[in-house]
Every structure is written in C-alpha cells, then in structure tokens.
C-alpha cells in the first residue's frame, strides 16, 4: 500500500459526471415535452386532468431551463473542474483530505438543492425571475454550494505544484466570482413571513421594484448565460481540445487577451434584453454597442481553437471527440455572431419576444454548451473509469443525429420568429393592424412541429450518450494508463 504511486483522485469528478448525465436527460426530456405541448396543446394533459397542474407548459418551463442550466451544465462544470483542476495544477485531491471532504460535501449539498428545486418548481414556488426562480431558502443552499466550490478552487490552487495557472483555471475562477456576485445581488429579497408573521415561509419580495428589478434581473440573466454557459465551457475547450488532439493551443497569448476582453465587455451587454423598454435609453444603447463589441473576444477564443487544429484536420474525420469540439466552437462563433445581431436596436424591435430568441439560446446551448460537455465527458470517461469508450460508432451516430436536431431547431425558430415579428407589425392599407394575435400563433404550428422533431432527435442523441457512458463505466474493455496519452481509446 505504502509504495503505491500518487494518482489523481477522480471520486468527486465521477459523481458529478453521473449527475451531468442524469440531469441532462431530465432537463432535455422536459424540454422536448414542452416543445410538443406548443405544437399540440393536447400534450398538456398527457397525465390526465388530475395532474394537469404539474404537466402544464407554464409549470414545466422554469424546470426545463433550470435543469439544463443549473443541473446539466453546472454538473458538467463541476465534473470537469474536479478533473481538469487537479491535472493542470499537478496536484491530487488525495493529497488533501480536507479538499476531498469539501468536494464530497459540495456534491451532496448540490444534489439536495437540485431535489428541492425540482419539487418547489413543480409546486409553483417561484420568484418568477428567469433563471433565478428559486425562493430564498433554496438560494441560501445555492450560496453554500457555491462557497464550497470556491474553497475547492482556491484550496487546490493553494497546494499546487505548477506555478502558473493554466488559462482554463482563469476561466473557472471568473465563473466562480461572477456567478457569486450576480446571483447574490439579483436574489436580494425580504422573506415576508419574518416581517409579517403570517403566510408562507417560502415567500419573499424582491428588494427592487419594477424597472429596477428588470435591470438587475437582466444584468444577472444575461451574465448568468455568460458565466455558466460561456466562461466555464471555454475553460473546458481550452483544456480538452489541445489534450485530445495533442496540439498545444495555437496562440496562448491570444487566449489571455480574449480572457480579459471577455471579462470587461460581457457584463455591459445585459441591457440588450431591455431594448425599447422603460430603462433609460443610454443603457439600452450601451447594451447594444457592447454586445457588438463582444464579438471580438468571443471570436478570439473560437478562432484560437479552430487554429489549434491547423494541419491536423484529419483528426476531425477520424476522432468523433474532436468532431464534437470543433462543431462546438463553430456553434460558439455562430451564436456569438447571432446574439450581437439581435442586440442591434432595429433588429431587436423585430426579434424581441419572438421565437428567434428561443432559437438563439438553443443553438448556443445545444450546439456549443452541450456538445462541449459531451466531448469533455467522453474524454474523461476512459481516464476516470480506466476503460475504453464503449462504442465509437454510437458516438458518431449521436453526433450526426444531434447535429441534425440542432439544425432543425434553429432554422425552424428563425423562420417562426421572423414570421411572427413581421406579422405583429404588419399594417393594411388603412393603417390598421393586418393580423389579430391568434393569426400569428396558428401560423407557427408547422415550425413548432419541426422544432419538436428536432428536439426529439437531439434527445435521442442524449439517450445514446447516456447508454454509451453507462456501458463505458460498466462493461467496456479495460485499458492501461499508458494508452491514454492523447487520443481517447474507444471500442468499435
């Protein structure tokens, strides 16, 4: 026992990997149900009249967004942190019983919070602010989980062997700090029970009212996207793509510059959710302008990743993992271009409140975030479970079926969004509105159906992923550490 060499300890990473898979299935399954409900409202009653309250579109929608953002994505972030963190700092969790305890505690509390979220959202306990729906007792739990993550990050950094922090660590730190700040300020509220002594203990009122509340909410809402769906995912790609392909990052200097650029610019862009609303005009303009500027640092990272593959494009054909990551960075470029376009005032006037925005979120999350997390988990699995990936052909099938799903999703939502936006503003020759609202709803039926099909294809891919991972954990061929220098070993 004493002579066993020191190894990286992936216990916590392993737990979070499983959570990622389970919550990914849950979040996306709910999403697909929602898509079918919009196309065919009868689906709202799928479990009968008695349970309609809990299968209804409006109850399930926050559950979908939160399960994907804070369930699937955050678990993925944690899983990769407890893997990448050790490796680039060259220190094992096994060296510190304290950090090991913190990691395990964080996981357990995280699962408790997730369970509380699912139950409370189904019961309709919500603050109604998007991506900040949780009532105050759950918020307190979230804070504890987040602080534990902070302890883990800075604790591991404190005992590191590698003096310089790799760029991925920078992004993880940024995600930690920014989400902490945004979440705290946006969820400031007064629990009513403690003031009045009656009513529900869960209920609270926001510290901000009306326009201020909206401003704080979208400062949060937009940047929750930035620091949950962007920075940690960039952290992943900066580690996993070079590692899997065996190519050093094309330009490390560019990665550092993009980092500071993203940090400074991103936080300004929240105002683009409030264009033509009642917040002051200069803030709306600021939101638009900075959104456009944001293209630069975003593309800095994305191009850096694509150039990392320079001269190695044959790997894209041969290695499905690289395929996932290259498509992810392509979608990152695509949605970071689409977003700024939607933030331009005149475009926003048309696009706001329509399905085009929904399409934008989904090409970002399905194409970029989820693809990167799949790739990260596929890369980690052989190293964590010491087995080769169960099936390469299943991976390839998953890749193509999901790509098709995403394409169907965003193209149908583009058309739906622009159609609806144009119909809302159409006037006849006398200056009267040309369409009643219901006309603009029924016209969307075919696009809602296509979207539901696209979503279903993607979900099938997620099930393939879950099956492939499950078989990798339990049944695949065992491999030696030495076979895993770069390319992940995978079975046929």
């Amino acid at each position, binding site marked *: 026992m004493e002579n066993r060499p*020191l190894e*990286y300890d992936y216990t916590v990473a392993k737990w979070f990997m499983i959570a990622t898979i389970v919550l990914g299935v849950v979040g996306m399954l709910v999403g697909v149900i929602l898509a079918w409900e919009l196309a065919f409202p009868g689906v709202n009653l799928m479990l009968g009249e008695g349970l309609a309250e809990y299968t209804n579109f409006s109850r399930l929608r926050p559950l979908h967004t939160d399960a994907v953002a804070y369930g699937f994505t955050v678990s993925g972030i944690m899983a990769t942190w407890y893997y990448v963190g050790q490796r*680039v700092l060259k220190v094992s969790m096994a060296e510190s019983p304290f950090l090991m305890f913190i990691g395990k505690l964080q996981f357990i509390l995280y699962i408790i919070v997730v369970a509380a979220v699912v139950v409370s959202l189904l019961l309709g306990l919500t603050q109604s602010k998007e991506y900040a729906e949780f009532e105050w007792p759950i918020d307190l739990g979230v804070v504890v989980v987040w602080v534990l993550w902070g302890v883990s990050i800075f604790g591991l950094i404190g005992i590191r062997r590698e003096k310089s922090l790799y760029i991925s660590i920078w992004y993880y730190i940024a995600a930690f700090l920014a989400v902490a700040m945004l979440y705290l300020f946006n969820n400031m509220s007064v629990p009513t029970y403690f003031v009045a002594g009656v009513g529900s203990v869960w209920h609270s009122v926001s510290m901000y009212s009306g326009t201020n509340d909206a401003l704080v909410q979208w400062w949060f809402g937009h940047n929750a996207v930035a620091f949950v769906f962007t920075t940690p995912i960039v952290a992943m790609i900066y580690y996993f793509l070079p590692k899997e392909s065996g190519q050093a990052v094309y330009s490390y200097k560019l990665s550092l*510059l993009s980092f500071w650029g993203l940090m400074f610019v991103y936080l300004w862009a929240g105002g683009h959710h409030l264009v033509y609303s009642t917040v002051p005009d200069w803030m709306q303009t600021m939101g638009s302008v900075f959104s456009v500027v944001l293209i630069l640092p975003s593309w800095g990272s994305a191009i850096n990743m694509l150039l990392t593959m320079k001269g190695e494009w044959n790997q894209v054909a041969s290695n499905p993992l690289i395929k996932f990551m290259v498509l992810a960075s392509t979608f990152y470029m695509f949605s970071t271009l689409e977003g700024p376009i939607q933030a331009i005032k005149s475009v926003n006037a048309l696009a706001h409140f329509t399905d085009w925005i929904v399409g934008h979120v989904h090409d970002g999350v399905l194409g970029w975030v989820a693809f990167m997390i799949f790739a990260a988990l596929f890369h980690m699995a052989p190293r964590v479970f010491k087995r080769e990936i169960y099936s390469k052909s299943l991976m390839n099938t998953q890749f193509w079926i999901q790509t098709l799903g995403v394409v169907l999703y965003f193209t149908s939502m583009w058309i739906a969004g622009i159609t609806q936006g144009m119909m809302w503003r159409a006037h006849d020759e006398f200056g009267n509105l040309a369409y009643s609202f219901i006309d603009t709803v029924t016209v969307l039926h075919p696009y809602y159906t296509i979207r539901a099909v696209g979503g279903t294809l993607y979900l099938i891919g997620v099930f393939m992923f879950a099956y492939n991972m499950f078989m990798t954990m339990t049944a695949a061929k065992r491999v030696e550490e030495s076979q895993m220098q770069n390319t992940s070993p995978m079975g046929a």
Partner: protein
Amino acid sequence: MDIGQIQAYAYFGFTAFLVMVLYGYIYHLYSSEKKGTRDYEKYANIALNDELTDKPVETVSKKDETKKEEV
C-alpha cells in the same frame, strides 16, 4: 457637480485606464517574448504534460510558498 456628472467622469476615467492597461498588456505579452524574458506560449504545455509524474512548466518554489502565506 451632481452625482451624474461625477459618475460620467469616473466612468470615462476608469474606461480609459482599463484600455491603457489592456494595450499595456498586449505590449507586455509580445515584448517580453521578443526580449526573451518570458515565453508565454510554453504555458500551453501545462495542458499537454499534465500527469502527476510530468515535470511542471514552472515549479512552485519554497520561497514563493512563504510569500503566499502572507496573502
């Protein structure tokens, strides 16, 4: 001078400062590489050589350890 004005000046000043810092950083990145004081690209290898048995790109020395404690 009302609060709005103070704010506008503070905003302008701080933004100008950050822009200067950013350009300074770019200059620093490239000049230190040219002068040979520091090669930033070598840090990319942290990801590639990340086994516990691999030699760190730069080791944390004992001297730094004590300095960090003060922080």
